[in-house]
């Protein structure tokens, strides 16, 4: 197997074209692949559809991508937050389209895409505005709503370590959407703190097998870690 480690972030993102659908991992700032997003802004692709749990926090990362006006539509569960001012402004000005999805349906639609499921019936959202117009069915006396898979052209995710084959391990709640997005996208690009040697990751603890990962970019250890261990200083 050839190494999936890219020579540069720019090389890893070079296939992304205007109009692409891109899943971006992270829950708030935890697990957000900030270096990949910054490089995507630099790369210039526009008219994007973004799938993320949120719609950006503060002025950096996903919020900066929105501020750069590269995003036509966002699919998410929780856009409005205390620090979602960039999205709020674009939405109120009619400059971005929003598809609001209950968080569990978002996760399961992504999972279903990666798992080759054609559609599924879920109890979540039944009888609410977010299920209006959708097919429903009663199964064993309980009402369900039909939901379809959510696929993407690209997934940009963040993990702690990768080996050269793209086997990934994550860290704490920064895992969140990474594993399911990796499987749901045609091309998955993972940024990692560090790439370790083949065989250095215990096969029993690998969370995302490399079959779901196409390109790996090493971005260096984040300031609150040393050798992958939390150092307990004020995080920057």
């Amino acid at each position, binding site marked *: 197997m050839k190494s999936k480690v890219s020579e540069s972030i720019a090389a890893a993102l070079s296939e992304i074209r205007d109009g692409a659908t891109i899943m971006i991992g992270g829950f708030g700032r935890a697990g957000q692949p900030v270096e990949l997003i910054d490089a995507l802004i630099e790369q210039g692709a526009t008219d994007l559809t973004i799938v993320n749990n949120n719609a950006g926090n503060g002025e950096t990362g996903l919020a900066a991508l929105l501020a750069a006006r590269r995003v036509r539509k966002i699919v998410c569960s929780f856009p409005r937050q205390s620090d979602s001012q960039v999205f709020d402004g674009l939405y109120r000005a009619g400059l971005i389209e929003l598809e609001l999805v209950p968080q569990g349906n978002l996760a*399961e639609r992504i999972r279903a895409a990666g798992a080759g499921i054609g559609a599924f019936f879920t109890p979540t959202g039944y009888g*609410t*505005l977010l299920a209006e117009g959708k097919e429903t069915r009663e199964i064993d006396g309980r*009402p369900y709503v039909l939901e379809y898979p959510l696929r993407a052209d690209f997934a940009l995710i963040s993990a702690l370590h990768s080996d050269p084959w793209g086997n990934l391990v994550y860290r704490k709640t920064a895992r*969140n959407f*990474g594993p*399911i997005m990796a499987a749901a996208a045609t091309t998955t690009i993972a940024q990692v703190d560090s790439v370790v040697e083949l065989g250095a990751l215990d096969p029993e603890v690998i969370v995302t097998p490399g079959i779901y990962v196409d390109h790996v970019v090493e971005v260096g250890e*984040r300031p609150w870690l040393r050798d992958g261990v939390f150092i*307990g200083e004020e995080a920057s």
Partner: protein
Amino acid sequence: MSMGRQELAAIVARDIPEGSYVNLGIGIPTLVGNYLPPGDAVILHTENGMLGMGPAPEPDQVDPDLINAGKQPVTEQAGAAYFHHADSFAMMRGGHLDVCVLGAFQVSERGDLANWHTGAPDAIPAVGGAMDLAIGAKQVFVMMDLLTRDGTPKVVADCTYPLTGVGCVDRIYTDRAVFDVTPEGLVVRETFGTTVDELRELLGLDLKENR
């Protein structure tokens, strides 16, 4: 005397059995965590992929990779486990959580819940995990004031705000009374400085008394 939020949080915590797997919604329900028995008697779930969530860290121990559903820093208890988002919501939807505690704008007498959207035309809607929590846990508790600031009841015959879930609430903890939602209607379980007759008058609902 009506109940303060802290006192009410203590009452909710009292009613959560040892050994329960529990999700506390963002906002007022997080106060319940302060009154759960110390240690590992109750295991807290957070939707962003963790069981065994501990309290907020000391300021110099804030780990940006370790947050709760409200995106606040938390800690890891011994025996904690991490998992991805689809697993986390399978835990909810699959009925594996024993109790979840949610805030609400309104609850109907049949247990319909409205807690995600005011329906105001200029509001930016955000649903998060509310709809999954509402329909998933074995027992769904709501914790809220009985009245809005302008005195309008929040326990109602029919919700006027957009619904989060249909017939999903089991119990309503408010500053004036605790109600069980039953097939026969609302049953007043406890009152705080008021009577069932006064509550009937205030809410205009047919309330049954706990016997």
